[in-house]
């Protein structure tokens, strides 16, 4: 790592990016979403994006509320549709850096269809999916990311459905940048989010967050520090893929940049078409 690391840590003050009158936020004690939010704002700071050029769109759920705390252009939209609103926003205002904050239920259940089509179009949006494996705000119902055998309010006998691999889904649907990281690795998460923001095209980042109060309690996963560190030690950093087959635990998820392809960005093609039609009309 370069020396800029300590420099950016010194120059970044999260309070510059927060709506002070809204703080403290509504999240439960130990919720991983707060760490992810801070890392996202740090990445924005590092990318040097001015606050009036930043647009954050969010849906419904614990993750959806995060946009309210960011002192930038924010848009709290309907359930599952933040990517849809963001698509319209980015097409109308290509000068904005559009970041979508969404949750696992918001993005993959209600908004699953919107996600795959957003991936397919490859419009220059950064989608940050905070995966806490549960519908936290509505009382702890099962989500498409809940692992098999886990207990939730709606699966009192344990979940019998397999869960999605969201990154594989996004990559298969055509997202040109896909990454995954845990909240405990703040620097890696910040770097990954920075790369996603800088990427030209649709970038999808899955942040493995923790729901301590409901998911952790129902599944006896310990307090928030234990949950966070257990996730960290279970992960397989992408950089290890060629040297260690099963480094930490079998079937562990890979982290880091998982997919990075060079596909034409949708917005440019759309604007070219719009300009052509406009010229033909006149």
């Amino acid at each position, binding site marked *: 790592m370069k020396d800029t690391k300590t420099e950016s840590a010194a120059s970044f003050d999260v*309070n510059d990016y927060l709506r002070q009158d809204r703080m403290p936020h509504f999240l439960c004690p130990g919720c991983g979403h707060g760490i992810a939010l801070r890392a996202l704002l740090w990445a924005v700071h590092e990318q040097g994006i001015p606050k009036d050029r930043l647009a954050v769109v969010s849906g419904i759920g614990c993750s959806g509320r995060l946009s309210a705390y960011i002192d930038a252009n924010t848009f709290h939209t309907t359930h599952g549709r933040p990517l849809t609103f963001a698509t319209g926003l980015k097409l109308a205002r290509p000068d904005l850096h559009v970041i979508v904050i969404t949750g696992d239920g918001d993005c993959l259940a209600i908004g699953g269809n919107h996600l795959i089509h957003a991936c397919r179009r490859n419009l220059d949006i950064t989608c940050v999916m905070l995966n806490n494996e549960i519908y936290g705000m509505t009382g702890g119902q099962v989500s498409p990311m809940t692992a098999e055998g886990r207990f939730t309010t709606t699966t009192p006998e344990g979940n019998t459905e397999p869960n999605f691999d969201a990154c594989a889904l996004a990559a298969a649907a055509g997202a040109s940048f896909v990454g995954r990281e845990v909240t405990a690795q703040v620097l890696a998460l910040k770097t990954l989010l920075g790369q996603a923001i800088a990427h030209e095209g649709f970038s999808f980042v899955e942040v493995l967050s923790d729901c301590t109060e409901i998911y952790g309690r129902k599944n006896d996963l310990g307090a928030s520090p234990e949950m966070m560190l257990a996730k960290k030690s279970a992960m397989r950093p992408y950089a290890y893929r060629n040297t260690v087959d099963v480094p930490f635990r079998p079937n562990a998820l890979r982290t880091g940049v998982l997919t990075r392809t060079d596909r034409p960005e949708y917005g440019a093609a759309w604007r070219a078409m719009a300009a052509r039609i406009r010229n033909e009309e006149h």
Partner: protein
Amino acid sequence: MDKRNRTTNVLIVGVGGQGVIMVSKVLAQLCQEAGHDVKQSEVHGMAKRGGGVFSHVRFGAKVWSPTIPEGEVDILVALEWAEGLRWIRHLKPETGTFIADCQKIVPPFACRSRKRGAEPAYAPQTPEEIIDQVHAGYVMDATGLAANLGNARAANTVLLGALSTALDFPEEAWAQVIAATVPPKSVQINARAFAEGRAWALGGTKRIDVTASGLQKSRAEVHHPQVETVVEITADWCKGCDICVKSCPERCLRLNDQLKAELALPDLCTGCQLCSWLCPDMAISVTNTPVQEAAS
């Protein structure tokens, strides 16, 4: 020194990768060719990780044991300063010869204070103090001499040159064994390094020459400015999730009676900022202000 009826003991010590084994190989080979009985014993297990390496070389009419008893070492060759000090009590008190490179390799365990700008707890003894304690002593800048010749890695051959003045073997015999031992590409530079070390050691029996890369300046030393750390915790925002308390590497935070995080042991805080990065409530801010150094 080379009396046929008694054993001569040479102990060579250093840090992994410096060439301790090469020095002992050259010496053992030379002794064998001169018709002595030679026993050599070494420990180099963790050498690759920068750990300590030592090699005993004993020769004489008949050698019975491969290791040298404490206080029986005739010549101690140290490729690294602190390693030399670690073994100096093995030296024969009355007649022992101490040959050391003033090269300083700071081991990780000497950096126990993780505060920025903290001095590593390295051996504080000065070369003068040590030389006063031994019968004959040479503290040389072998690494600097070798670097001037073009390759700092030839420092061990410079020390071999110094060692050659303390033993009764002809100079040509040394040169031949060195040429046969080192890689073909480096024969020339090793020959020059040997001559340089030998010439330097002939200049006196209690010589100290600490220059360029010496004790005052080491490659391992990088200057970090000392910082003054201020940890601010917004109690109204803190929800007492315990993440900062559990993740602090110095264990200097705790939850108070109201289940709010507080800095319990400010002296231990190194300003690493991990708590502020991991705080989900963004309640902690850590600022490191460089302390203005008065002298410089």
